[in-house]
């Protein structure tokens, strides 16, 4: 009886496995599921990402890591060999600012009036001051909410992106951003660094009737949160040692998370796109004594030296400013806007020249094609191609605090690789293979057209819209 049950069960599993494998076969970018864990890409040009280019080399991947790279390396007998003749191997690309895998609905908890300036909200949700902690959920961690069924994950991966920083949105302290690798069997496989960095937005969340409803109100609020967190850090041990002497300290989740964050010197992402905002962010970072990274940075060309002087890294939004698609063609364009749109792509070159560490992020672009296309614009505007590659690989990994594990092709690094049939920034280059944590994906064809409507996103904070519409950090 028991045995028969077991047999039936096994049969079922077998059938499911068969169906699953069938589905797998028909999938254009075939995940090699329970497939080999050893690979060797031979006869390929290898751009290691650490300055060395091997014109005819081999990369050996073993159990998720890069085992060896060089002109003549031993190929393990169990390895699947991919003939890399005519192909180039790069470190997997990193998109340093996305909302990949994050559901779009507002967090229900304490999101106060949420987005939308004039949105009416029940009075109970209206923040009446900093003590109501408007738009503040720093305890959320993107990793915990990461959904693997986001179709964009595959789109990004097929375009050569193996890794992304995914940021919660909504609010002033929306939550901790997570570094994810873009493949895995289950959610946990994706997460590289759950608590990677703390994004902050200056967007007023009060919606006119609630606090804060202005940029200066947001800044004042953030200042108060840092004050409170520093206070908590100081007060908690004194209270613990003298609990018969003092009134009980109230429990405040925000203070607990932020004080830990300050103690650990975790990086904080501050939005700043134009020169005024960038200089302001640098000043606030000093005042708040935080380990800041600027995101936005599109007018970096005007203030690159000031950024360099503070040694503050920048995540550059590759969604370059453009004239609004449905703009009145007769409407006057100011010289200032025109100059900004013309010069924004020169920011990376200017940052590189001044010695600022920077990485690229997609900032709401619809997919890898656009991302690489816009990176090409930065290259046309003077950025050296290898600096552009670093902004997608080594420098990005460093800013995100994962450079010990990724960003270049070297033994011991996570086997995140992209194999192309030409220069990664070439217009006609195609991605042929992608490895994520040693999982092999063969890209058979151009991915289907990426529709912007595929996953309708609000602009993430720091996108050009945010900077120009007068709402939030905008002007």
């Amino acid at each position: 009886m028991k045995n028969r049950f077991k047999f039936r069960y096994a049969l079922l599993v077998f059938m499911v496995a068969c169906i699953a494998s069938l589905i797998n076969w028909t999938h254009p970018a075939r995940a090699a599921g329970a497939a080999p864990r050893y690979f060797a890409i031979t006869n390929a040009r290898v751009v290691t990402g650490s300055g060395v280019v091997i014109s005819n080399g081999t990369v050996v991947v073993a159990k998720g890591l890069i085992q060896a790279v060089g002109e003549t390396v031993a190929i393990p007998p169990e390895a699947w060999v991919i003939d890399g003749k005519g192909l180039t191997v790069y470190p997997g690309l990193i998109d340093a600012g996305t909302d990949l895998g994050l559901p779009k609905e507002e967090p229900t908890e304490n999101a106060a009036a949420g987005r939308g300036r004039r949105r009416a909200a029940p009075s109970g949700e209206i923040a009446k001051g900093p003590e109501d902690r408007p738009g503040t959920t720093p305890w959320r961690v993107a990793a915990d909410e990461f959904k693997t069924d986001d179709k964009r994950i595959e789109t990004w991966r097929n375009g050569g992106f193996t890794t992304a920083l995914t940021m919660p949105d909504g609010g002033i302290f929306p939550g901790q951003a997570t570094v994810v690798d873009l493949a895995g069997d289950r959610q946990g496989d994706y997460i590289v660094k759950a608590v990677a960095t703390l994004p902050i937005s200056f967007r007023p969340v009060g919606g006119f009737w609630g606090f804060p409803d202005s940029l200066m109100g947001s800044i004042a609020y953030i200042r108060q949160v840092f004050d409170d967190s520093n206070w908590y850090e100081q007060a908690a041990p004194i209270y613990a040692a003298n609990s018969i002497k003092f009134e009980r300290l109230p429990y405040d989740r925000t203070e607990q998370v932020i004080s830990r964050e300050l103690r650990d010197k975790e990086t904080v992402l501050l939005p700043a796109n134009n020169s005024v905002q960038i200089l302001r962010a640098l000043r606030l970072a000093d005042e708040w004594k935080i380990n800041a990274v600027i995101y936005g940075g599109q007018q970096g060309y005007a203030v690159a030296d000031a950024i360099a002087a503070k040694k503050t890294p920048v995540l550059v939004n590759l969604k370059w400013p453009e004239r609004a698609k449905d703009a009145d063609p007769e409407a006057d364009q100011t010289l200032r806007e025109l100059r900004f749109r013309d010069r924004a792509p020169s920011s990376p070159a200017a940052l590189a020249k001044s010695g600022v560490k920077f990485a690229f992020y997609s900032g709401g672009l619809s997919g890898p094609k656009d991302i690489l296309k816009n990176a090409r614009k930065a290259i046309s505007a003077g950025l050296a191609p290898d600096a552009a590659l670093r902004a997608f690989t080594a420098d990005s990994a460093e800013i995100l605090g994962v450079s010990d594990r990724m960003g270049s092709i070297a033994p011991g690094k996570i086997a995140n690789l992209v194999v192309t049939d030409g220069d990664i920034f070439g217009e006609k280059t195609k991605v042929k293979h992608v490895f994520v944590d040693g999982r092999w994906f063969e890209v058979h064809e151009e991915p289907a057209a990426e529709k912007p409507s595929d996953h309708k996103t609000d602009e993430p904070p720091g996108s050009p819209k945010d900077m120009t519409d007068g709402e939030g950090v905008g002007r």
Partner: protein
Amino acid sequence: MKRVILLMAIAFGLFAPVALRAQDSNAPKNNIILIKNATLLTVTHGNIEHGSILIRDGKIAEVGTDVKAPDGATVIDANGQYVTPGIIDCHSHIAIEGGVNEGSVSVSSMANIADVLDSDDLSIYDDLAGGVTVANVLHGSANAIGGQTVVIKLRWGKPASQLPFEGALPGIKFALGENPKRSNFSPPPGIEPRYPATRLGVEETIREAFIEARQYKKDWEDYKQKKAAGDQNLIPPRRDEKLEPLVEVLEGKRYVHSHCYRADEILMLIRVANEFGFKIRTFQHVLEGYKIADEIAASGAGGSTFSDWWAYKMEAFDAIPYNAALMTDRGVVVSINSDDAEEARHLNQEAAKSMKYGGLSANDALKLITLNPAIQLGIDNRVGSIDVGKDADLAIFNHDPLSVYAVVQKTLIDGRVYFDRQRDIDMRPALEKEKQDLLAKEKSAAEEKKKEDKSEGKSEGKSEKKPDAKKKKPPTSQSNVGGVAGGGL
């Protein structure tokens, strides 16, 4: 804020090519400038015909009819022109990013204008073109106690960190009457209206905030005292960004600039301030100030008013254009302000109206926009008149500045020319050309993209049917998605 609609037409008419403004003013080759042959309206010691001003290191070094240019001095020949002290606007909302009001709460003193200064705001340049050199940049009037304020010099082209007037005491905005009691704002259903809703409530709100601030101050003093006495096991009070500026008010380290209209509420605020032992530095708008000029003068407060603007709401019905003159007669230090980026460009004319209405002398009229606001802001040791030792903040007009024909030719701050009308005019063709070139560049790029999209669109359709048609000439695929997704800023 207020006259926007009324004066929009004038604004566009007078200074149309707003886009064509230079980002930066040229620095002088050296730090010595001589302005010669001008009529100097010194404000403090009469007018000097055919006078000269020597500027050294940004300060006025010599003033008189017999000043010689040292070697290497840059000479500005202002023959037939008039030099006045730089105009000071005691009520401005220029150069603020992301909202003038933190209007959600009745006490928004945690908000600070200095945090959101926007050095790229074109209004800075526009106001320079009206001879303004200093502006008291105020938070709006939505709150009984509003945000922290900052006095700036209009150093166009400098970063925001270099705008604040060094050493000028910061301020805080208060507001009385209809705005803080939200007479003209009702929230949508479901949202509780903000307290207060009456003038009584405004008073109560201010009083309560200062009671809190007094306690906060005491808590910190107690803490510091105990700590100094050696008690190490102490939990410090929390820092409170809302109360700290109010403590500064109590300690006389921060000026109060209060928006107000009616006589009764002005008297109320004087009483409340007395109760808590602080002073009101200026009453702003103060349209009924003429009714209680003696009381205002006795309180030591200044009055910063409009020249001739009223009846735009109930509490502004009792205003008269004689207000500035009448308050001046009773010993109040009076200034005329703009409250508006456009109005600030002709404050000289606004001041001149007090000669017609109230019979102020030309010099007293000029004081309304120079020395008096300097006194009100506590910066009269640095600016407000043409005197040796003061900052070389100057405006050069082609006519008597109190005439409607007067147009600013040059504006200097710290001895540096920040606005030069001729240079502005000379620059326009080049800037216009730059603009046209950039427009053409964008247009051709857009057309290019359209073309690519078209060809891409076709081949895309085919390749969808034959996914494996690898040998087919690859479409210009990279730009396709851009075409679809691009534009959407």
